[in-house]
């Protein structure tokens, strides 16, 4: 569902901003980590927020994993069936793309599509769930805590 963060239609608290790479890793055994599995187990009992670019990034990670043989269409289909039941909410914050998101990207020398996570975490004061070294470093420098499942 796509709603501004302040009206996410869920009774469960918003717990974090969730990196698409964490979710995509659930279908790539080579990328199974303790952290991504812990996030997976935590997600059903909370709500999570994702930026408006999230679904495209997820598709891109899937594309790369399929091309490298790291996953299969069947596994992705299986994951998508599960995702449909999870309380993921898409923030409608694209109006920040050319201002604050761009500023964050420049300040931390990260791509804009990755800066969307940090801008959203800062704006909503939510921790960030990621294993990306660049994004983790930028979050720490911005005072954004990393999500502990």
């Amino acid at each position, binding site marked *: 569902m796509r709603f501004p963060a302040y009206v996410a239609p*869920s*009774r*469960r608290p918003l717990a974090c901003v969730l990196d698409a790479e964490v979710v995509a890793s659930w279908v790539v*055994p080579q990328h*199974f980590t303790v952290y991504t*599995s812990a996030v997976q187990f935590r997600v*059903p009992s909370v709500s999570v927020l994702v930026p408006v670019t999230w679904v495209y990034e997820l598709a891109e990670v899937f594309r790369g994993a399929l091309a490298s043989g790291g996953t299969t269409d069947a596994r992705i289909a299986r994951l998508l069936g599960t995702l449909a*039941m*999870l309380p993921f909410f898409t923030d409608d914050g694209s109006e920040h793309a050319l201002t604050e998101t761009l500023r964050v990207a420049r300040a931390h020398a990260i791509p804009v599509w990755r800066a969307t996570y940090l801008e959203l975490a800062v704006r909503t004061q939510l921790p960030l769930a990621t294993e990306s070294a660049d994004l983790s470093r930028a979050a720490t420098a911005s005072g954004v805590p990393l999500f502990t499942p």
Partner: protein
Amino acid sequence: MTVVTLAEAQANLADLLRRAATGEQIVIEHDGARLALSVARLPTPEEDAEQQRRAEAAVRDLTREMARWSVEDGVVLPPNHPLRSFLEAEKPAA
């Protein structure tokens, strides 16, 4: 799409909110502008509990499959990895 005046909206607010919550597009005309009525319906506590139960079951099912995928791909999980307990549970009894 339903377009109403502010006076009509005030007189029928409960009905308009109910219809907007089910996805109907409601627009209120006021001072020459058209204002879209956007409603996000929170689930009831009972609905939320049921959604959470289904989500937890879906994640458990997915996790069992992930454990199998790791075996198929020959991935060795570290000793503290949560998926290991699912693999242990699926081992046939000796």
